């Protein structure tokens, strides 16, 4: 074997030089290049879609964070608001919001005339199209809270009507006004004048983030705050039920349960449950929690219970994976120094698996936070999120909506201003999801141990 079978007769070797490529190598290299190009193209397409999506969301939704306001001093006429003049709160409450409208309209007209705007509209009633229907409720609430205001001139910051707001946001265009019965060109002329006079201004609107839902006639007033609380309470329920149940179940299955047909069956079914469409859990929740257990409809407690069912398999699967990743030597060492099985699990295995469990839980919660379908069936979609809860019990039991359900509801409504709010709601929901996922990544990076 010392003499290798090198060709000695000086004939040209068949395979050629290593530096010049033969046809087959060229073909293989070309195939590889093509494959890389496909990969780059696939990633580029994905990124393009992501940017288009982000761009669409931001351009359509950022407008919702700004709102047009009118700052108007209103004379709170005693003759209208407290006819008896005795400041009796019960008598003042008898004046409904409809009694306040004329005062507000008069005040707006006075501002228009003060600003010296030339307009054919001279009746105070004609100012109605400019201001939100919420103005009367706002003034009434202020008066009921402090009856001493009656007889004074108080400055209020009213929401402008959704059409005026749309005009400042370029949504309502003058060429479309001809058949719009909600507003006309004369009103927009007034808006232009008031804008110059500084009465009308578009500013940041915290009420969109913290406020309650509003009816179809007041798109300008609607906010996502109350449904955010609904989501929060649901997440509490999910966290307090799904985490202990899921962790206990996976510890038992992973560390204690005997390996037999029954546990195999349970394992397979847990994996299957994770793939069950969420609407199925919704109809299960309707049948079990509302129709059988008589829990209240539209309550975040029920929503949380349904989402718990949905999240449990996710948590069990990720918990078992992280328990499995703890090497058996840890368990053996603990058992070797005399720890009981339970001590070895709770003192050694569980702490080491905790980062993985937390990550899985947070991802599961994020999934539950964005879920809409099961909430449809238990009555959490509609005109619901209008009362802010005043405590933990009412937060769990009083009707409320959830963020994705609220967005879905807004997208259905007739006033185009709601469309913008739906996109705005998506921005807020995305911020929540991104921060939850970031938290999961950070936890994993900081605490996860590799063996």
């Amino acid at each position, binding site marked *: 074997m010392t003499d290798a079978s090198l060709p000695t007769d000086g004939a040209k070797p068949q395979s050629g030089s290593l530096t010049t490529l033969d046809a087959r190598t060229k073909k293989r290299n070309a195939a590889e290049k093509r494959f890389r190009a496909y990969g780059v193209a696939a990633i580029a397409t994905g990124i393009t879609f992501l940017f288009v999506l982000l761009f669409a969301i931001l351009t359509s939704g950022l407008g919702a964070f700004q709102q047009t306001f009118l700052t108007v001093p209103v004379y709170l006429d005693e003759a209208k608001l407290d006819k008896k003049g005795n400041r009796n709160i019960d008598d003042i409450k008898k004046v409904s919001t409809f009694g306040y409208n004329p005062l507000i309209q008069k005040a707006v007209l006075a501002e228009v005339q003060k600003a010296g705007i030339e307009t054919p509209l001279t009746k105070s009633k004609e100012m109605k199209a400019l201001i939100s229907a919420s103005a009367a*409720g706002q003034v009434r609430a202020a008066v009921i809270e402090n009856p001493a205001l009656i007889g004074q001139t108080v400055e209020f910051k009213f929401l402008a009507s959704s059409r005026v707001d749309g005009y400042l946001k370029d949504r309502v265009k003058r060429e479309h006004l001809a058949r719009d019965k909600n507003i006309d060109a004369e009103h927009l002329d007034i808006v232009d004048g008031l804008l110059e006079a500084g009465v009308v201004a578009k500013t940041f609107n915290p009420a969109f983030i913290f406020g309650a839902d509003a009816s*179809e006639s007041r798109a300008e007033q609607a906010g996502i705050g109350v449904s955010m609380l609904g989501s929060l309470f649901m997440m509490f329920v999910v966290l307090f039920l799904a985490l202990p149940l899921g962790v206990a179940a996976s510890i038992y299955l992973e560390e204690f349960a005997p390996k037999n047909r029954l546990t195999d069956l349970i394992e397979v079914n847990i994996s299957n449950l994770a793939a069950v469409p969420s609407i199925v859990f919704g109809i299960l929740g309707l049948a079990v929690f509302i129709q059988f257990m008589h829990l209240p*409809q539209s309550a975040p407690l029920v929503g949380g219970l349904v989402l718990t069912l949905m999240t449990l398999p996710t948590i069990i699967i990720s918990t078992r994976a992280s328990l499995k990743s703890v090497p058996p030597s840890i368990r053996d060492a603990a058992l070797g120094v005399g720890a009981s099985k339970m001590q070895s699990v709770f003192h050694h295995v569980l702490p080491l698996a905790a980062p993985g469990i937390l990550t899985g839980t947070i991802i599961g919660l994020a999934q539950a936070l964005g879920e809409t379908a099961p909430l449809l069936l238990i009555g959490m979609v509609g005109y619901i999120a209008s009362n802010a809860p005043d405590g933990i019990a009412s937060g769990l039991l009083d009707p409320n909506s959830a963020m994705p359900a609220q967005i879905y509801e807004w997208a259905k409504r007739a006033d185009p201003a709601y469309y913008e709010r739906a996109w705005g709601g998506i921005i807020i929901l995305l911020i929540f999801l991104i921060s939850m996922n970031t938290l999961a990544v950070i936890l994993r990076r900081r605490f996860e141990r590799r063996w």
Partner: protein
Amino acid sequence: MSVKLTASALAIAAVAATSAAARDQVQVAGSSTVLPYASIVAEAFGENFDFPTPVVESGGSSAGLKRFCQGVGTEHTDVANASRKIRDKEIKACAENGVTDIIEVRIGYDGIVFASQLDGPDYSAFTQSDIFNALAPKVMVDGKLVDNPHKKWSDFNADLPAEDILAFIPGTKHGTREVFEEKVVAAGCEATGAFEAMMAAGMSEDDAEDACLEVMSDGRAVDIDGDYTETLASIDANANGIGVFGLAFYENNTDKLKVATMAGVEPSTETISTGEYPVSRPLFFYVKKAHIGVIPGLKEYAEFFVADEIAGPDGPLAEYGLVSDPALVETQDAVAAEKTMGGDS
């Protein structure tokens, strides 16, 4: 540790379940056509009364009435919104579950309009016969009842544009579908003489009436089971399509839609209230009398809904697109007296 946590969590849930018996806000479900009106009323109600704002869900008239009829007790809804009258079948289903005393409240009228893309073909005037000729499976051609040969609108009416027939109509779970069938398709069936021809061909009157309501299922008439926003999106994507909308929805979207006249009448709150515009329907809500006095604010809500300042011709509902009921005073009296259906009316 986890076991204890689980046990306490379950205990919390159990406590919550027992304290859930009381409910202090009115619960409403039903027609998506009535939903905007109900939400406007609910909001104003919350503003003006010390009661909490009622909860209003949609889902369609039939679904709402079904939930309403499931029984008496705080876990069931108090009010069902409907864009049609309650059916005898539903009253019977209600009675079987112990829901016997129902107060029917008519809040006003709603117009159903045919609209198309603002910059689309010139669909500006329809008659019931046009819609029937376009969508029915059997139509009259030259005095004979034949399978519908029409492909374009201009095939049967030279005044209409030469565009392929495409209509987005409400799905069968909507109360609007019934009105569309009865006031448009069936009316067209009679006007074109198809009804008589069917009778002459030996059909019984009932069969002929049913046949008159049919629309073709070859894709030219598309059922929309969602809301009007879905119809609007379909119209946006199909320039040659016409869609069926509620008047209020159309009036909120005049920058995208143009409306067609029906039998020469332009739809508006005025033409509907005078009865000139042919395609309109009453809107209702139904109140469970057994819940009055149990659910705080239920009667006040019902009375507030039909009060002059809300449902009257100058109220916020009319502003949104409801055609107010000329007989509103009678409705107010009936609600005040808690007059139930079939009782003494």
